[in-house]
């Protein structure tokens, strides 16, 4: 597969959309049909390793989806190669920071339980 094939991003965008759809549908159904969730219950649930892993998958799908979206907008509108590289680099750094921060929060949360 070529470095700038576009196929990889196309697949990532659709797969991440499916993951997000599944998570948000499940979340909406839980909120609509189940009993109200208290903060303590949410804390307890999300501190379980499996739940934390599930949340990590959700955030990964979200950030992957965001990356493809930002990348598409930049490729469409930013035509100077240097500026394009800079904007894409800044976006990638920002998303990598968010991903790392999420991992740190989840690991600390699971360890504190």
């Amino acid at each position: 597969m070529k470095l700038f094939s576009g196929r990889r991003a196309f697949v990532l965008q659709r797969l991440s959309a499916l993951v997000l759809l599944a998570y948000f549908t499940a979340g909406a159904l839980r909120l609509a049909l189940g009993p109200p969730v208290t903060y303590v219950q949410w804390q307890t649930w999300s501190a379980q390793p499996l739940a934390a892993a599930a949340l990590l998958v959700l955030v990964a799908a979200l950030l992957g989806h965001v990356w493809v979206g930002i990348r598409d907008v930049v490729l469409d509108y930013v035509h100077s190669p240097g500026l394009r590289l800079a904007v894409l680099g800044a976006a990638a750094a920002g998303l990598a920071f968010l991903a790392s921060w999420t991992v740190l929060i989840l690991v600390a949360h699971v360890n504190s339980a």
Partner: protein
Amino acid sequence: MRFRVFRFDPDGHARPVMQDFDVRLEASDRMVLDALVRLKEQDDSITFRRSCREGVCGSDAMNINGRNALACITPLEGIKQPVTLAPLPGFPVIRDLVVDMTQFFAHYHSIKPYVVNDEPPPERERLQSPEEREKLNGLYECILCAACSSFCPPYWWNPDKFIGPAGLLQAQRFIADSRDRATAERLEFLDDVFKLYRCRTIMNCTEVCPKGLSPARAIEHIKIALLRDSA
């Protein structure tokens, strides 16, 4: 009938303007192109392309009341006045309603719009089954009028890199052709972040195609073929 026409004279070095005209129509004038021909009798400086005047050659594609169409098959009956005529959006204007289609045809040529088959030719012809021939329907009818590409926002954003709906529909026409032997090379060429994947499925192309074709669907078929190719 009232018309408002985009005017640009490259020799005048002036900014483009919209000029109003009252056109006296005859009873036989049915289409926008008929009115344009009448208009040219009144003001012979007005410039536009036309040839077959029956929706086959694609020469007179233009923006009519904000929507790309062929002037020769756009009826005057019931049309909103003043009828605003502008050149195809996103294309460099040469003069009045005439645009420069060099880039458009460069993209078209880039997809190798011909059957590639190095196998020895049979005695008479390369036959297709009815099912194989059926796959070309909705693809081969394209007349390259550029109504679709010029109404496609991603084509406005990257006209030099994105092949555009017309070129991609033509690419699919040869990918789908059972007589062609260059499918792998064609897919390899199209597998590019700019050439193919700038398409956002906005579907303006399908909306305005005067032949009722769906370039958006053709583009999806190329993407599916690429996915199958990588599987």
